[in-house]
């Protein structure tokens, strides 16, 4: 069955939209694609190597796994991987067949649906999709879990998703939940990285992370190597620092890289192993960006407007959206998902004892602050990158990211920034309505043009 994407020209914006200019993507992100493929290949071989496999969901805890020499599968990443390869439909259909409503998180539906297919295949000794389908080989390779770990900030559905996975495997796979409570920010001393609530929650999450390592020790029969964690985190911290420095360079006009370049670089700071490879990758990204700044080369060739992307990514529309915005001369320079997450405060991590700083980075994921502090941080980014307008992706089944979007849009308007909403989803293409985005984007561009003319 063809997806919408396949029926239309791949990687092109709507032919009826804009001037046809394509996004000028960073060349180095192609290298990044190889690292991601290497990760999946390594994962698929985990059982052959005798490694235990952890399925986890939520925040970027793989350094803990890496330091303990176990393999890991991030459920969201697996769902996004399938969606990016347009292989999510069989998994979602399997989920729907069991009764999962399509209003449920599409990451969860895809992940659970694929697990249902795998379990059925295991039972019946056959694949759920045509054996000659190139997707079949990949899907059949995902190793089943030896442990389940949930560490989901903010989103209750994230925890329930792993609870269902746990039950799907007959409650026989040991599970560990790390609770990462919301930083509501209601106490008088509450501020970004400050206050009694911040300190209490940081200690609470750190305590649970140490217990999580004891859980791994129990189920692998091996002692946890804390020095190794510091070593792994050394690479992660360095990569994260380079990433933040490279992002800072995008204050230049035209912006040398876009939100979409950062989107395709998420895996590297989210779930790839903490090795020299990710440091090299972000060094290369930074170098290319520096060169672009020196050359005056932008991610969009004729940058007229600078936008901020709010919301979760629409994973089966990355290239499509990159080109769409480029075709109207708009660079999406920054985003909540990319710029307010994934080790965005690397200096909090003390390599002599990294756990507390890791816990703190997990606590500040892009939606785990109450709205006042979160919107304050968004506004700081918008000021820094001189943003003209906000693109609000109302991701239908990711309510964790849609929760405060009306408040964010209001705040943007108070700061004289335009805002548009468009509907879509993280991994369910059926919620995306291209023509609605076209109309709204055209309207926003016209309004911004009019404002400039009037200024």
């Amino acid at each position, binding site marked *: 069955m063809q997806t919408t994407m396949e029926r239309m020209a791949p990687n092109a914006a709507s032919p009826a939209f804009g001037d046809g200019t394509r996004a000028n993507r960073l060349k180095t992100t192609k290298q990044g694609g190889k690292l991601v493929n290497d990760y999946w290949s390594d994962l698929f071989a985990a059982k052959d190597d005798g490694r235990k496999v952890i399925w986890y969901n939520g925040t970027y805890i793989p350094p803990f796994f890496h330091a303990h020499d176990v393999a890991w599968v991030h459920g969201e990443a697996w769902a996004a991987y399938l969606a990016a390869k347009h292989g999510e439909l069989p998994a979602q259909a399997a989920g729907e067949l069991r009764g999962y409503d399509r209003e449920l998180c599409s990451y969860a539906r895809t992940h659970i649906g694929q697990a249902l297919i795998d379990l059925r295949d295991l039972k019946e000794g056959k694949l759920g999709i045509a054996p000659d389908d190139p997707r079949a080989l990949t899907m059949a390779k995902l190793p089943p879990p030896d442990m389940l770990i949930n560490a989901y900030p903010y989103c209750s559905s994230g925890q329930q998703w792993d609870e269902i996975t746990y039950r799907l495997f007959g409650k026989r796979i040991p599970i560990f939940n790390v609770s990462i409570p919301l930083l509501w920010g209601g106490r008088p001393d509450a501020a970004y990285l400050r206050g009694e609530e911040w300190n209490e929650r940081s200690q609470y999450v750190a305590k*649970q992370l140490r217990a999580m390592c004891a859980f791994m020790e129990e189920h692998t029969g091996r002692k946890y190597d804390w020095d190794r964690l510091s070593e792994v985190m050394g690479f992660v911290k360095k990569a994260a620092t380079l990433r933040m420095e490279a992002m800072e360079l995008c204050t230049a006009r035209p912006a040398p890289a876009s939100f979409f370049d950062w989107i395709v670089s998420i895996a590297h700071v989210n779930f790839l192993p903490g090795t020299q490879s990710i440091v090299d990758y972000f060094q290369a990204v930074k170098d290319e960006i520096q060169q672009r700044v020196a050359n005056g080369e932008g991610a969009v060739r004729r940058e007229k407007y600078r936008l901020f992307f709010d919301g979760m990514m629409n994973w089966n529309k990355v290239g499509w959206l990159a080109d769409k915005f480029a075709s109207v001369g708009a660079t999406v320079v920054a985003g909540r998902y990319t710029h307010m997450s994934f080790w965005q405060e690397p200096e909090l991590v003390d390599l002599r004892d990294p756990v507390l700083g890791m816990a703190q980075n997990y606590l500040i994921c892009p939606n785990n602050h109450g709205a006042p502090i979160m919107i304050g941080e968004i506004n700081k980014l918008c000021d820094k990158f001189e943003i003209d307008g906000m693109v609000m992706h109302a991701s239908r089944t990711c309510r964790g990211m849609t929760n405060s979007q009306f408040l964010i849009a209001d705040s943007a308007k108070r700061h004289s920034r335009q805002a548009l909403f468009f509907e879509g989803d993280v991994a369910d293409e059926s919620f995306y309505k291209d023509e609605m985005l076209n109309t709204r984007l055209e309207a926003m561009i016209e309004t911004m043009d009019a404002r400039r003319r009037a200024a």
Partner: protein
Amino acid sequence: MNEILAAFEQAAMRPLAYAREYKRAHGSRVIGIFPMHFPGELAHAAGALPIVIQEDQEPITVGLGSLFSFYCGYNRSVVDQALRGEFEFLDAIMFGDHCVQLLGTADILRDRAPKPPILFNQLITSLSAPWAEEETRKAFAQLWKELEALVGHAISAEDAHVSIRLFNRNRALIRQIYQMRREGRISISGRSLQLIVKSSMTMEASAHCALLEAFLAGIEMRSPTPRGVRVYLSGHLCQAPKPEILDLIEECGGIVADDDLYHGYRFVATDIDETGDPLDAFARWHLERNRRVPCPTVSDEKADWDQFLLGAVARARARGLIILQVKYCEPHMFFYPEIKETFERAGVPHLLIETEHEQMPMEALKTRLETFMEIVKRKAAA
């Protein structure tokens, strides 16, 4: 009896009007509680009237400017009520549930309807964690402190014990009605029982107990018609099912034998220890109530909602299960397939009804219910 039911109805169907009047008449503070896991006892011990904030029956209008249409009816209604100024008379709202939609709602209220303040203390949802009880205790201790600051005086352990005893009594009285209904000794409509439970979420607890005692003294011992189909109602977390749906189930030949609704048995199933440190008691209650009636909003290795339901249906001698699922309620949607499969394996008929704040086509629902009742009857006759 009609007068007593009318009093229940007054508080259940117009809870904010009841609370406003109570505040005016008694000069008491009124504290709202978001469902489903916060004990009203704490607010009561602080000298306030605790009320569970309810979905109202008004169409959503101004609320849709702040919240997307793909949020559950409860959240949309709460935002709408807040923006209409309905909660301004409240002195505070207590909140600690981990529901991603409700977290968003709380932020909207804080921004757009900042009076009353929200006392936010998130309760742990990983109930199997070794630190679950300790963390729950901490959350309640913080709330205790914040309530003291709000009311301007200390809340003693004895204050808490008095409130716990009163609320336990209230729950026990309602459980008596449940027990009689389960055993087929009384005939009480789903609507009436909902009014009783829902009014207990608003009405001053002593007054509610007095009404319950009068109700129990006067209730007629009369079995429901033997021709009816005994069914069990499950689901509908946070918000009450529309009474019209309960009426329709009965009009189609159903007799509700028992339920695990939040506006039903779930709300009254578990008491709080009346002795010892009240904070310890509140913490144990939070963990214990999920073992009594499992809730899909928490993670608990020791609880199985599907197995609980299978047992509960058998204990109630019900012949079928009717699942009332609120549209966009994610925890319920996650667990529904498991319940469905369990009941299919056990050969117990079940029916899923998805409910919405607006747009409930009752005629279509009637056809489905009639068909379900026929299926149950034929299965019983086979």
